[in-house]
């Protein structure tokens, strides 16, 4: 079952103006990463002993991986709920997840004080199964590997069809003294190609088991991201500290995942000036309220059970943030209950944005805003700290741009005219990205 013709590469230049803008942001971020490794975390961040986790953990890890749950949410939809019509979306969703998780892992390495000791995660005598962090770390590492495996078919297809133009260009550019012999290089490249040819059908056979692993692992670690804060019973505000944190985080990442998928699709349709795929988007949008309604009822039921409803309505700092988060998710879902709104790109965009914002705010509330270590502690991220996060996000977008141009990721619109093209269109803004029909000669 070759799905390769289902996807195609994005035609267009890689080195555009936006590429260089992103690159400079990445470089600035990495300058501060360098400062952090030379002078210590305190030199670049405002974190303190009271707030030992700042935006690197709150945004890059806790929120970033939820936003990267598009791959997870779409995989559930396609493989578990058997909605194969969404299959063309899956590769770009997996690519975003791959970058989202990879860079969450990268920012953890920036955030860790003693990263050289991270090998202890692989030493059984050091394992500490009571720690939610241990579970999150292992799961995220495993999931990142699974994502790479899930993405591998795209790379293999690309190798199979490659005429090695770039490699030859590099060879020609090199000084003849350094350049490898043309014949040997071609032989070696041919071997790589044959290797890819050999691997691909075998990988395809077992791929479904990795895909299902790619559904199981996020279920585990997304809930554990909530479990992380269970222990902070004296520090996390009672509005958010509950035994249901794992369940709430799990549901939260699912509705964020679907909403992000909708947002990405609408933005890309808009910037590629193509009709909106209302049919599929409204189908996807119809699923969201089911998840959010469960989430909202667990939140309310739990608050009522713990007699915290009054605190939620009190109107103070914490209640304000809680109400914002709650109303954003509830409001976004209410819009989606109206069938007319589900069929309007504008309303879909508004409601999906509200739900993503509300869902992300929930995670910020749990990790930072509702977290109070005691009197005298304040936290607001420093410029350098923010720039490291921004640089990492820019790297993610940059990587996505390069990957969709190098590998067949985006849905092939010639084949799937009815299917939406789900790309990170905002990342291609200002770019004349045109889709040239391409007859892909896949090896059958």
């Amino acid at each position, binding site marked *: 079952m070759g799905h390769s013709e289902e996807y195609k590469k994005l035609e267009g230049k890689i080195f555009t103006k936006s590429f260089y803008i992103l690159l400079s942001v990445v470089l600035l971020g990495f300058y501060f990463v360098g400062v952090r490794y030379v*002078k210590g975390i305190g030199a670049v961040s405002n974190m303190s002993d009271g707030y030992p986790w700042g935006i690197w953990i709150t945004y890059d890890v806790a929120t970033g991986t939820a936003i990267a749950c598009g791959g997870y949410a779409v995989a559930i939809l396609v493989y578990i709920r058997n909605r194969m019509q969404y299959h063309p979306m899956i590769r770009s969703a997996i690519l975003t997840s791959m970058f989202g998780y990879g860079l969450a892992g990268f920012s953890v390495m920036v955030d860790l004080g003693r990263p050289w000791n991270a090998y202890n995660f692989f030493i059984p005598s050091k394992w500490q199964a009571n720690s939610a962090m241990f579970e999150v770390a292992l799961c995220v590492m495993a999931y990142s590997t699974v994502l790479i495996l899930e993405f591998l078919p795209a790379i293999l297809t690309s190798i199979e069809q490659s005429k090695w133009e770039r490699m030859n260009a590099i060879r020609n550019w090199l000084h003849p003294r350094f350049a490898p012999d043309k014949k040997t290089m071609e032989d070696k490249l041919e071997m790589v190609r044959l290797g890819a040819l050999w691997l691909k059908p075998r990988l395809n056979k077992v791929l479904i088991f990795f895909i299902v692993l790619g559904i199981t692992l996020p279920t585990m670690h997304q809930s554990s991201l909530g479990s992380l804060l269970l222990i902070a019973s004296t520090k996390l505000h009672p509005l958010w500290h509950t035994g249901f944190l794992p369940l709430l985080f799990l549901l939260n990442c699912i509705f964020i995942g679907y909403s992000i998928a909708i947002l990405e699709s609408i933005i890309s349709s808009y910037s590629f000036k193509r009709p909106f795929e209302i049919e599929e988007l409204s189908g996807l949008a119809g699923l969201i309220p089911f998840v959010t309604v469960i989430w909202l009822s667990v939140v309310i039921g739990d608050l009522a059970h713990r007699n915290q409803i009054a605190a939620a309505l009190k109107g103070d700092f914490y209640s304000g943030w809680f109400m914002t988060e709650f109303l954003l998710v509830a409001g976004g879902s209410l819009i989606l209950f109206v069938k007319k709104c589900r069929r309007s790109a504008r309303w879909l965009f508004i409601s999906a944005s509200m739900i993503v914002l509300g869902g992300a705010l929930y995670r910020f509330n749990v990790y930072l805003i509702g977290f109070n270590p005691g009197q005298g502690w304040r936290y607001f991220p420093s410029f350098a700290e923010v720039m490291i996060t921004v640089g990492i996000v820019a790297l993610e977008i940059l990587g996505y741009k390069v990957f969709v141009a190098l590998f067949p990721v985006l849905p092939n619109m010639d084949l799937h005219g009815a299917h939406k093209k789900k790309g990170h269109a905002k990342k291609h803004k200002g770019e004349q990205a045109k889709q040239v029909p391409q007859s892909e000669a896949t090896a059958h």
Partner: protein
Amino acid sequence: MKKTSRRDFLKLAGATGAGLLACGAGSALANEGLQVNNEELGMLYDATKCVGCKACMSACKRVNHDYGSLSYEKAKFDEDGLWDAPSDLSGSTRTLIKLFKESEQRWSYVKYSCMHCQKPSCVSVCPVSAMTKEKVSGIVDYNKNTCIGCRYCQIACPYNIPKFQWEKAVPQIVKCDLCKATNLREKGISACAEVCPAGAIKFGKRKELLEEAHQRLKDAPDKYVQHVYGEHEGGGTNHLYLASMPFNKLGLPEIKPEAPAEFSEKIQHTIYKGFIAPVALYSTLCFIAVKNMKKHDSHDDDHKKGDK
């Protein structure tokens, strides 16, 4: 034939998984329960006896300077660095004396250092076992050679005890280990308790310390707040406090008797008991996904045949 057998296997796996999940959820409800061990080592700090001389602070730094990676902290007014003047526990300071003054008549010193909990949150959350609780002595110890620097211990500790060296490129966590590798090994007593000239710090087994504390409360009921802080807080601590002022005014938080680590571990264990739930989830999902793929494939094949 082969295909059917795989399918049957998956079906079976899914069913057993679901069954095990139900059993697991049931048995996980049985509480592990916390056993308080009063034979562990600890300290009793009596704020009414403390004279605020800070001899304990200087002794701690002298004894643990190299081993604990401590250093002297300058005060703003003291540019030459004549005094060690930490303003709070930090990556350079393991123990600290503070003065809380409500009025000329009502004030109290208080000493901060690790509480050495019976059920320490930091040990419960450390993903790589860099924080450990010694079985016999009950000392909560830190091993910088395993620590990855994730600072989850700082999030978890309700007393905000573990401190991180933010200004260093090679940082570590700093916290009291009852002079385990230094003074306790050499002299059998922690440095702070050894040097205290006012007898405000008593070193010993938790059982003796509790007896002593209750005796003092009984002997001078008007002098003290009738409560031994640490006896029940967060499942009990080995570092105990007596004071004449309400403890929350001295910066010691009000904590319920249930250890926070009990609460979180109970939930984590319910979900991950014997790793049954994840395996059950995986096999069930595999079953569904493979079935769906088969349907899709046969549908595809029909489609292709039709095309031809």
